[in-house]
């Protein structure tokens, strides 16, 4: 069964296009390296950045190995607290990626459900939900997230906040971006609803929920796939921005954004690597995701909802 599916996939136009697109292959390979490296971080990283017993403040601000004053113990140097930058980046990327993926899963669940409902039932429900989506989108995710997290932090104090940071970031980014999915799904549902198979299952007497999720949803998957890659990239950028502002992950358990933030003040004294290296790691991660998203869009070419 799996072999047959695999065979089908190898012969598909999708795989054919993929093999001919050097940018897509490169992006995919880099993406895989990222995922493997950061989820295997405990095995790969030479140090555990969360273990305070092995951190020595005397090791702080050591430049990367290949520079003057570099130390062969620390491949990419150390940060201001004396943590090995390479290990901290691996663990940080894991946090960034996890938040990004979980937030997008939440967006997907919310957005797809509401988009299906909106498109399938139409009428007042539809205009209400879409108006809500328009308003929420125009506020920009980052703005909503900044205000929400800032107020939350002020209400509950920094200590509690730091413990809940991952959860809060996933919730805020997840809830703020549902309209992206809802609009995309709704647009496809409107197109699918006119087709005969939907009439057929309706005549058979299936319940709306079943029609929506079992019959219409599978036919709206390609636009969902296309926006998902870009959405994960966006979620990672939002998370980094929030952490950079001090509203996200704490420095003791840094994501890429908080690592960049913690190193920012040191670029003036010459320790550029604490900020610039995690910055480049973040840029490359977002770039390959956007490139993969572009590739998927070009190949699957669904009539994406404008904007």
């Amino acid at each position, binding site marked *: 069964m799996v072999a047959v599916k695999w065979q089908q996939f190898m012969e598909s136009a999708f795989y054919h296009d993929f093999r001919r697109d050097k940018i897509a292959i490169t992006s995919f390979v880099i993406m895989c390296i990222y995922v493997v490296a950061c989820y295997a971080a405990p095995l790969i990283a030479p140090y555990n950045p969360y273990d305070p017993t092995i951190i020595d403040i005397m090791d702080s601000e050591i430049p990367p190995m290949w520079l003057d004053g570099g130390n062969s113990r620390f491949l990419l140097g150390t940060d201001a607290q004396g943590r090995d930058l390479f290990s901290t980046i691996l663990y940080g990327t894991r946090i960034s990626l996890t938040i990004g993926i979980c937030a997008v899963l939440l967006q997907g669940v919310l957005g797809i459900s509401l988009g299906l409902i909106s498109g399938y039932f139409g009428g007042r429900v539809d205009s209400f939900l879409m108006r809500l989506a328009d308003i929420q989108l125009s506020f*920009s995710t980052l703005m909503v997230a900044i205000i929400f997290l*800032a107020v939350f932090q002020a*209400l509950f104090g920094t200590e509690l906040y730091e413990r809940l940071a991952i959860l809060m970031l996933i919730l805020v980014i997840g809830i703020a971006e549902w309209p992206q999915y809802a609009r995309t799904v709704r647009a496809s549902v409107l197109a699918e609803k006119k087709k005969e198979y939907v009439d057929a299952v309706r005549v058979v007497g299936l319940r709306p929920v079943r029609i929506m999720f079992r019959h219409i949803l599978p036919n709206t998957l390609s636009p969902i796939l296309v926006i998902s890659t870009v959405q994960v990239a966006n979620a990672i950028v939002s998370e980094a921005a929030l952490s950079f502002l001090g509203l996200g992950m704490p420095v003791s358990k840094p994501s890429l954004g908080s690592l960049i933030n913690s190193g*920012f003040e040191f*670029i003036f004294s010459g320790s550029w690597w604490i*900020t610039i290296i995690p910055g480049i790691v973040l840029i490359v991660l977002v*770039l390959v995701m956007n490139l993969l998203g572009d590739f998927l869009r070009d190949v699957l070419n669904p009539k994406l909802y404008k904007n």
Partner: protein
Amino acid sequence: MFAFFVRRLAQAALVMFVISVIAFSIQDNLGDPLREMVGQSVSEEERQALRDKMGLNDPFFVQYWRFLKNALQGDLGTSYFFKRPAVDVILDKLPATLELVFGASLIIIVFSVPIGVFAAINPRHWFSKFAMAVSTVGISIPVFLTAIMSIYIFSVELGWLPSFGRGETVEIFGGWTTGFLTWDGLVHLILPCIALSSIMLPLFIRLIRAEMLEVLESEYVKFAWAKGLSPKRVWFVHALKNTLLPVITVGGVQIGTLIAFTILTETVFQWPGMGFLFLEAVNRVDTPLIIAYLIVVGLIFVVTNTIVDLVYGLVNPTVKLARPHGGDG
């Protein structure tokens, strides 16, 4: 048309109402105004008496109504930190932020339209390919990283441009200070404006190119070619006009994002604007200031968005006036 106007204004009022309720509930839950006023040394009975006198024990709606009445008169409370009316504190910082946004918008408009149009007219030209490649990379670099990297390159390594603050400013009228009229002020504006425009610019280049490509394929442009009009006329009079319509809408949607980005840019460059002030207020739990920021920014945002929508409704005859919630605008 009239119905469209009314509906759009009603929506703006509704959004403003929701913002005010959110702002009020923040005020209600965050910090105790009494403690800010009298400190710890007052006894419990006196506190209760004061609470009654100040109306802090009134029902939610009574308090909200009072808040709304004060807000409409421009009174949003006194900043705990600055000991001045919060609205005044915010409005003092408004010029700095608006000049930043203005500078960034100028960069976006001046570069995105020509580059986007050029890339659509000459898709195979090396410059078009180069511009599209740069845009793809540009979209992937978060604003705060552009800001940090430009500081590192141009301030720390090369020492060409200043890395923080507004520099020398002059007051022009009614307390509006500007950095556009002094050399020092202009030099200080360069990096923050570039950083703020760094994500929007590639976004708009891609958008204008895509819209223009679509318009160039349309029937009426083909007809214009068939009539034998000069290429310039077809491109810049016939095609460009219809390209810019959707760009206006996207521009309206991006206002919220731009405001969020000013917070990031101002933090990196320690730009004395509203965004920087807001984050400081959050760290100090300066509730009136947080609320004033919410209301002022919400107002700016709702007003601009409404104007953009109304203008779009006026300019574009095909916009669904009768059913503005049709969805595909």
